[in-house]
């Protein structure tokens, strides 16, 4: 479903942020990406929907080369949901309109139908009563659940999450992880950047550990967390699990 073939990326032609990335994500697979800050995790998933162009190699999604001039990038992005660390809801639109905007504009879904689907999605993320609120009236956890509903409204084939819980107060992390967990079990193809171990163990089919722009280790979650092979992954896990030391 997602295929990285020898991908290299530089920022400002000197900062090498992705190094020879090769990775295949199968349909229905859930891949968790972790690694130290600045290791290129966000950049990696942002290449999947073309938010970041790559300078070498190819990224393929659902049989289409993201960088190909013949690929309709807008149509491809419609199939790929993206959830940001900072939610990025549209502050001038009500919750319901945040969710229906893209279906109405891109899929040409009639408003009534779009509203009905949005209401369903809001129920699914436990926010049916917030449809008429503005984003600024919601807590961080609620905003992130709206953002997930907004992505799902396009009925995407792939969902990408960039640290969906790291901007949240601790007491709100659970409610958002729960929603993502349910999605993972529903058979959606997902790439999730996160350091939430419990979540990774529960739903990930694979964990990918990145450092300095390269994929250093790929493993089943139970193996990765109990016996990481590389020194860098061991060091990283020690820091994540015991931040004080």
């Amino acid at each position, binding site marked *: 479903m997602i295929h990285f073939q020898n991908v290299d990326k530089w920022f400002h032609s000197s900062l090498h942020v992705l190094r020879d990335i090769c990775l295949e994500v199968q349909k229905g697979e859930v891949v968790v990406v972790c690694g130290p800050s600045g290791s290129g995790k966000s950049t990696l998933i942002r290449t999947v929907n073309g938010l970041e162009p790559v300078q070498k190699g190819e990224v393929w999604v659902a049989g289409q080369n993201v960088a190909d001039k013949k690929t309709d990038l807008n149509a491809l992005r419609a*199939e790929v949901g993206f959830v*940001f660390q900072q939610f990025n809801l549209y502050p001038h639109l009500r919750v319901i309109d945040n969710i229906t*905007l893209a279906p109405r504009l891109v899929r040409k879904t009639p408003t009534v139908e779009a509203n009905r689907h949005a209401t369903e999605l809001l129920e699914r993320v436990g926010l049916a009563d917030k449809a008429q609120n503005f984003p600024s009236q919601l807590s961080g956890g609620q905003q992130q659940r709206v953002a997930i509903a907004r992505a799902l409204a396009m009925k995407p084939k792939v969902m990408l999450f960039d640290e969906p819980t790291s901007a949240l107060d601790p007491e709100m992390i659970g409610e958002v992880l729960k929603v993502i967990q349910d999605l993972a079990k529903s058979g959606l193809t997902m790439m999730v950047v996160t350091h939430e171990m419990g979540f990774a163990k529960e739903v990930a089919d694979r964990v990918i550990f990145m450092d300095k722009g390269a994929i250093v280790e790929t493993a089943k979650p139970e193996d990765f967390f109990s016996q990481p092979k590389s020194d860098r992954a061991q060091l990283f896990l020690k820091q994540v699990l015991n931040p004080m030391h």
Partner: protein
Amino acid sequence: MLNYQFDWHLILNGEYRQWLLSGLWLTLKLATVSMILSFFLGLIIAVMKMSGQRFVRAGASVYLEVVRNTPLLVQIFFWYFGSFKLLPAAWNEWLNATNEFEFIAATMALTIYTSAFIAEDIRSGVRAIPKEQTEAGFSSGLSFLQVMRWIILPQAVRMTIPPLVNQFLNLAKNSSLAMTIGVAELTYQARQIESHTLKGFEAFTAATLIYLILSLVITGLMEIYNEKILKPRGAQA
């Protein structure tokens, strides 16, 4: 000069008062029509200037440079004398038939001139919107124009309202140049009164006061908008 005796009686009564009022009316009409048109033209230019296509961007740049770097008076003469030569014959016939040719030429010049400044105001409004908003829009499959129309501009224009009011004030003042091509707006009428009555000082003092009051009223409304609408919203967000 200090002992000058103002003679208001003549000017503030009867026919001449009527002239001043009709001048004020035309000034307001000129400024309002030009404002509305230049807002939409400014939006288009701003979006072109931010487009991903190099040629579209270059076109907008040329427009902005030419319009902002030539005197408004020259632009008014340009459209007044030039539109006959530039526009298709059918349009010219229609323009003549309306009997409003001067007004239309002045509106065109003021609209084009002001649109360049409005485009820059809108662009600074857009720059104040976090780029993540654009990314969120693109990520859900929207095109550049859709992102602009539905996500960025609605937020940017709200921030652009104070500078837009400023542009309206500028327009009201700049519209006085339309007298040079015979549009009977406020300054033109003051001039007419002067030539009829030789009370030029009174006539232009009256015109000055009218411009001043107009500006103060609009600035006052702006203050109210800032206090009552913008500030409470900001506090809530």
